[in-house]
């Protein structure tokens, strides 16, 4: 759900930037007129939007309500409203301390995978996308075809072959098994490529070269700033993808010490369905709530950069 929403937004952003970059002065008049059309209200659209908002928010509401319940109250009270006791703080403490605090360990693992995996993926995608957009070299077309092809292959389909390969290398059951595959983001690369071709004027790079700046210095001091909105978009993406990564760690890891939150929470959930297993659904739900907090924060925080970046782009020249 979240991922899909981000995809749509990012695509809109990419397109929007392209249009704006392409339209410079002559079309200013038209875009003003279009602005006034947007302000007209449509009841139908409002209703549709409202329904969609409800559809998206209802599960969140459910999560919030049910994380305040005890295991006992969970199955004996109405699902969409609070039960008598407010056990949220109690649940949080239990979640963090259950089974020697393995939740905290998983939280740390997820953070590691996100910082190194998503951060690395964004950096690599930016470097590569920029290079493909701004430098002319033999084989560029071939790289383009490979990247487009890679976008089309779902990660799930590659999980088992990746597992077999990592197993031969002796890397399964280590953090590398999660980090290395997450470092690759063909979609992020493509996005930066498209974005960089418009956002970074070649004239600017030439000017920098004439002033004696090396290519790396130009990239980090000039281009990267111009690429900021695209960079943040790709970062958001990869963060969400890594944070929610489930299938890959599921098959790569067998030691619970390296589990990310997704796989860990599922193992808690499955525990009740086994003979003599303790049912801890209240902790699964509270754990899920705690799991989405950082991603919501990251989204709100990064969105600010992303919007200011967009605005900066629109008034340039």
């Amino acid at each position, binding site marked *: 759900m979240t991922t899909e929403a981000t995809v749509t937004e990012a695509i809109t952003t990419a397109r929007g930037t392209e249009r704006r970059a392409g339209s410079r002065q002559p079309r200013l008049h038209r875009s003003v007129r279009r602005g006034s059309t947007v302000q007209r209200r449509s009841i139908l659209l409002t209703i549709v939007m409202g329904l969609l908002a409800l559809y998206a928010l209802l599960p969140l509401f459910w999560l919030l309500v049910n994380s305040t319940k005890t*295991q*006992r109250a*969970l*199955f*004996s009270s109405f*699902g969409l409203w609070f039960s008598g006791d407010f056990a949220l703080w109690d649940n949080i403490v239990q979640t963090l301390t259950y089974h020697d605090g393995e939740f905290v360990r998983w939280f740390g693992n997820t953070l590691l995978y996100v910082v190194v995996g998503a951060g690395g993926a964004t950096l690599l995608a930016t470097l590569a996308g920029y290079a493909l957009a701004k430098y002319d070299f033999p084989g560029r077309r071939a790289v383009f075809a490979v990247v487009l092809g890679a976008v089309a292959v779902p990660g*799930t389909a590659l*999980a*088992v072959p990746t*597992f*077999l390969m990592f*197993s*031969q290398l*002796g890397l*399964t*059951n280590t953090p590398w098994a999660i980090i290395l595959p997450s470092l690759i983001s063909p979609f992020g690369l493509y996005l930066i490529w498209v974005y960089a071709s418009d956002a970074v004027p070649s004239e600017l790079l030439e000017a920098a070269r004439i002033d004696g700046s090396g290519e790396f210095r130009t990239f980090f001091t000039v281009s990267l700033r111009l690429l900021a909105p695209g960079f943040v978009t790709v970062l958001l993406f990869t963060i969400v993808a890594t944070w929610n990564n*489930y*299938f890959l760690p*599921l*098959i790569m*890891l*067998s*030691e*619970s010490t390296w589990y990310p939150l997704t796989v860990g929470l*599922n*193992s808690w959930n*499955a*525990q*009740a*369905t*086994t*003979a*003599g*297993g*303790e*049912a801890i659904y209240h902790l699964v739900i509270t754990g899920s709530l705690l799991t989405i907090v950082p991603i919501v924060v990251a989204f709100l925080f990064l969105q600010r950069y992303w919007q200011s970046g967009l605005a900066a782009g629109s008034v340039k020249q």
Partner: protein
Amino acid sequence: MTTRSTIRRWAGVAVAAALAGSLAACATPSGGSEQGSASAEEIAAALQKESSITVWGWAPQLEPIVEAFEEKYPKIDVKLENVGTGNDHYTKLQNAIKAGTGAPDVAQVEYYALPQFALSGAFADLTGFGADELEDQYTASTWGSVSIDGGVYALPQDSGPMAMFYRADVFEKLGLEVPTTWDEYIAAGQAIHAADPNAYITNDVGDAGFTTSMIWQAGGQPYAVENGTDVTIDFADEGSTKWADTWNQLVENELVAPISSWSDEWYQGLGDGSIATLVIGAWMPGNLESGVPDAAGKWRVAPMPTYEEGVAAAAENGGGGDAVLEQSKNKLVAYGFLEFLNGPEGAAIHAANGGFPSTVADLESEDFLGYESDYFGGQKINEVLVQASKDVVPGWSYLPFQTYANSIYGDTVGQSYANASDLNEGLAAWQEASVQYGIDQGFTVNGK
């Protein structure tokens, strides 16, 4: 919920894909490795030497048993890892077997999944270590489940002889007798649903484990395996039809709650009595106590209803044992651990932690039989459950690709449930799809 079932399906596909490769390994003779056999003295000596083994399993009782083992054999380091429950665990196991490295030394395995690993040569035949002499320790039905094709591929841990758990308060309120035959059970189902349209005799949206266990009780033997690769699937046999015709009366008249087990609604129904009975394995009491604490004192247990008045019959539902992997480089210690885990010492700890044993000594012990469960209103539940373990109908076997077959159950028999139509048709579709898969995998499959 949807995501979870999708993932499960993917996991099924992964198992299937991995299985395709592993069958090729079937041709190489198993047990040919240097550690294929050992005497009791050699095993005892190995346990006194510094070494380590890895164990994969999800049963909560494994942890205290491993602790006790390490205390007794301080030189052995046991790494216990919970890699997932049920299907997730088998996917990982199959992947590691396919990869040729990374599998544990010992793995938990449910009875239904055992033939798949045993017949493909992934698990070591334990007869070389003297496991065949342990037969008398275990119940006939669990021993039957681990003896495959002349070998012993696992030692039983827990068992799940089926019984009927029921809400005494619901039956009392409606003035109903507790059913002893399936005809009475259906009549009770009608009465309960007529008195309250939101109440049902039980829940069932179609579950492969439940269906196979019910056919087992009815005396059906739809699966037969000979020489490891000659498979027969026949859901038109007498027992299968007997079950389907009986259960049809509940399904076609929508007398079973359309609620899947282990869901929120399920726990809610078990708690408020709108699901009045569960015909399920003997391991259920612990799950009721922790999952539905509010219903304490309301549940009771009775023998499973039968087809013929007064002729007791039961089946196994769930339960499993532990096996040694062919890949293991430390088989002597792995087997030594297995003997502890599934022998008297491990079994005692297992039973003390809410497991239902498969060892005759524990099942017959005074303490166990005399235990009065507060949750069940002081009833001596183990008397009923142990009797069930003796009444299990002999002769059942599972398919050598049962985890895959179970994964396509929803598309076949599940459709009969969804449409409230004839279960025999669903079973025929399941048979057809299973036969096709077996043939694709290189088995000789005879679908009658």
